[in-house]
C-alpha cells in the first residue's frame, strides 16, 4: 500500500518544477484580469459605512442603467462597507475610494484634513451634501415584552440595551447624542443629571459591538438584549429580513436627525480620471428615481414626492440636530467621544 503514495523521484521533481511557474502565471493573470477590467469601463469605488449595503446595491443598479443610457458605456461599480471611522482611516491610508458615503461629516472631515478631499466639500452638493437622512429608533422583540416606549425605559434595571461602541462606530455616536438630548430635556438642561442618565444607560449595555451592523446582528441573530438602539433603516431592514411577528419598531419621543453625507475624493478621482462619473454618481442620488430607491431602502428621502410616498414608514419624531444642539461634529466629537470626554466619564468598566 505504501507504494500507492510514493511518487517516483522524477515525477516529484517535475511536479515541484512545474508548480512554481504555474503559480507565477496565476498571480500575473490575476493582476492582468483586474487591470483589463479597469481599462474597458469606468470603475468607481464607493467606500461606505455599515448599514448601507442594501441601499447601494439597489442604487448601483439604477445608476449603472442611467450612466449606460447616457454614455453607452456600462460602468463597473465597486462597494466597500465597514465601520464609518475605520473606512475613513482606510481611505486616508490609501484605499482608492472615488466617492465616500459615510455616517457623519466628521469622518469625511478627517479625510479632508489630509488633503485628499477639498475643505469645502460639504457645500459642493445640495442640503449639506446629504441626499438622505435617517434617525435613531428602538427595535424591540415582538409584543414589546419589556414595555419600552421611550428613552427613560432604557435606564430601568433589568432592561438589556444593545448599542455599538461610539469609539469605533459612527452609528453609536448618533445613539449617544440622541440619548443625551433626551436626558438634558428630562433634567431641564442639567449636565450632571444627564451624565447620571447616560451612566445608567450604559450600565444596561451587556456588549458593545464595534459597528452598528454588528449590534443589529447581536440583537436579531444572536438573540441578545431587550432593545436595540440603532439606525432607523437598519431596524426596518431587520424586520424585513426576519419576517413578520419577530420584531417591532418603537419611536422614542425625541431623537436626532442623522445626516450621513457624501463626497467625491478629489485626489483619487483626478488620479483615476473618474471625476465626471464620480460627481454624477453623487448628484444622481438627488434625482426623483434615486430618492424613491432611498425611501424603499428605509432611508428618509429629501425629495418631497418620495418622502410623501414612504411617509407611513417614518413616524413623526421630534428631531434635534448636531449643528443646532451640539455645535456641530467638530465640537461634539471631542466633547463626547475624545479621550476623557463624556463617554469616557460615564462608561467605566467597573460599573
Amino acid at each position, binding site marked *: 500500500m505504501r507504494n500507492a503514495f510514493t511518487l517516483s523521484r522524477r515525477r516529484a521533481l517535475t511536479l515541484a518544477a512545474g508548480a512554481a511557474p504555474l503559480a507565477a502565471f496565476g498571480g500575473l*493573470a490575476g493582476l492582468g484580469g483586474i487591470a483589463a477590467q479597469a481599462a474597458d469601463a469606468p470603475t468607481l469605488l464607493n467606500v461606505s459605512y455599515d448599514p448601507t449595503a442594501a441601499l447601494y446595491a439597489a442604487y448601483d443598479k439604477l445608476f449603472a442603467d442611467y450612466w449606460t443610457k447616457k454614455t453607452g458605456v456600462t460602468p463597473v461599480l465597486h462597494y466597500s462597507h465597514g465601520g464609518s471611522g475605520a473606512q475613513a482611516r482606510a481611505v486616508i491610508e490609501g484605499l482608492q475610494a472615488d466617492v465616500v458615503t459615510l455616517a457623519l461629516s466628521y469622518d469625511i472631515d478627517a479625510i479632508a484634513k489630509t488633503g485628499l478631499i477639498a475643505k469645502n466639500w460639504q457645500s459642493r452638493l445640495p442640503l449639506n451634501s446629504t441626499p438622505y437622512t435617517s434617525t435613531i429608533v428602538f427595535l424591540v422583540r415582538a409584543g414589546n415584552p419589556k414595555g419600552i416606549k421611550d428613552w427613560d425605559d432604557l435606564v430601568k434595571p433589568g432592561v438589556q440595551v444593545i448599542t455599538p461602541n461610539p469609539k469605533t462606530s459612527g452609528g453609536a455616536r448618533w445613539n449617544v447624542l440622541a440619548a443625551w438630548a433626551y436626558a438634558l430635556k428630562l433634567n431641564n438642561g442639567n449636565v450632571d443629571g444627564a451624565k447620571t442618565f447616560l451612566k445608567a444607560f450604559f450600565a444596561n449595555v451587556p456588549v458593545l459591538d464595534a459597528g452598528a451592523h454588528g449590534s443589529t446582528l447581536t440583537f436579531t441573530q444572536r438573540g441578545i438584549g431587550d432593545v436595540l438602539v440603532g439606525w432607523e433603516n437598519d431596524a426596518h431592514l431587520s424586520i424585513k429580513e426576519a419576517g413578520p411577528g419577530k420584531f417591532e419598531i418603537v419611536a422614542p419621543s425625541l431623537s436626532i436627525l442623522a445626516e450621513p453625507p457624501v463626497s467625491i475624493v478629489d485626489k483619487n478621482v483626478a488620479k483615476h480620471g473618474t471625476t465626471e462619473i464620480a460627481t454624477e454618481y453623487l448628484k444622481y442620488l438627488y434625482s426623483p428615481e434615486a430618492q424613491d430607491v432611498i425611501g424603499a431602502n428605509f432611508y428618509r428621502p429629501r425629495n418631497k414626492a418620495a418622502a410623501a410616498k414612504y411617509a407611513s414608514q417614518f413616524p413623526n419624531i421630534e428631531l434635534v440636530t448636531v449643528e443646532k444642539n451640539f455645535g456641530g461634529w467638530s465640537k461634539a466629537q471631542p466633547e463626547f467621544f475624545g479621550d476623557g470626554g463624556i463617554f469616557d466619564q460615564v462608561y467605566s468598566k467597573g460599573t
Partner: protein
Amino acid sequence: MAVNTPAIETYLVNTPVREKPFPFAKLALITVAMLFMALFLLLPLIVVFSEALSAGLGEYLSALADPGVLSAIWMTVAIAAVAVPANVLFGIIASWCIARFKFTGREFLITLIDLPFSISPVVAGLLQVLLFGTTGLFGPWLSDHNIQIIFALPGMILATTFVTFPFVARELIPLAQEQGNDEEEAAVTLGASGLQIFWRVSLPKLRWGLLYGVLLCNARAMGEFGAVSVVSGKVFGYTDTLSLAVESLYDSYEIQAAFATASLLAMLALVTLVLKAALEWAHRDELHALKRKKAAT
C-alpha cells in the same frame, strides 16, 4: 522497532488488570471527549452545510455562481498561488542552511521564522499599513510612483505570505536536521555537483515533509482572515477573498449565500484533513521521527 512490538504486546495481553477497576471513569471520559468533539467540531460543520443548503441545491449553486463569490474564489486562489510557492522556496532554503551549516545567528533565524505564529494576524495586517499606507514608511514614495500595495492584491499576498511564513520551514527544518548529511557526503565522494546533490539527494529526502508543509500552508493561506481583512479594503467582488466574502455577505443579510461560501472553506478544510491523514498514514515512520524531534526541541 519491529523487534520490540511483540514484547510490548505480550506485556499488554498478560497484564489486563489495570483496565478493570475504572470502567465507569473510562466510559465517562470517552463520552465527555466525544460529546465535546461533537459539540465544538462536528455541530458547526453540520450547521454550515445545512444553512448553505437550506434553500435547496439550486439556490446553493446560484449563490456560488454569483460574480462576487467567483471573484472571491479567484482572489483566494491567486493569493495562495503566490504565497505558497514563495514560502516553499524560502522553507527549502532555510532548512538547507539551518540543517547543513553552522553560522552565527542560526538560532536567531529559527526563532525569527516562528515570529508570525506569535503575532496576531491583525497586527500583521497593520504592519503592512504602517509600511505601505499613504502615511506609512514607504507610503509617499509608493504613491509618487503610483504603486498600490495595500488595499490591492500585492498587499494581500504580502500579508498572507507573512502569516503563512513558518508552515513549510517548520516542517522541513527538523526533518532535515534529523536526516543528517550522510547521503549528501556520499554523493560528494561520488563526484556529484552541489546542484545535483540538491535535486537528486536532499530534495527527494524532504519531499513528504514538504508536501505536508505545503498542505498546511495552503490551508492557512486560503482561510486567512485577520491579516487580509486589514489590507484588503473589503470591496466585495473585487478585493474580497472567500473568508472576507463570508463576512460581507453575512453583513448584507445574505445569510444563505454567506453559508454557501463558508461551505467552500469547510470543504477545503475537509480535503486538507483527508490528504493530511493519508500523508500521515503513508509516511508514519518519517513523521514520527519528525514529531519526536519536534517534541525534543
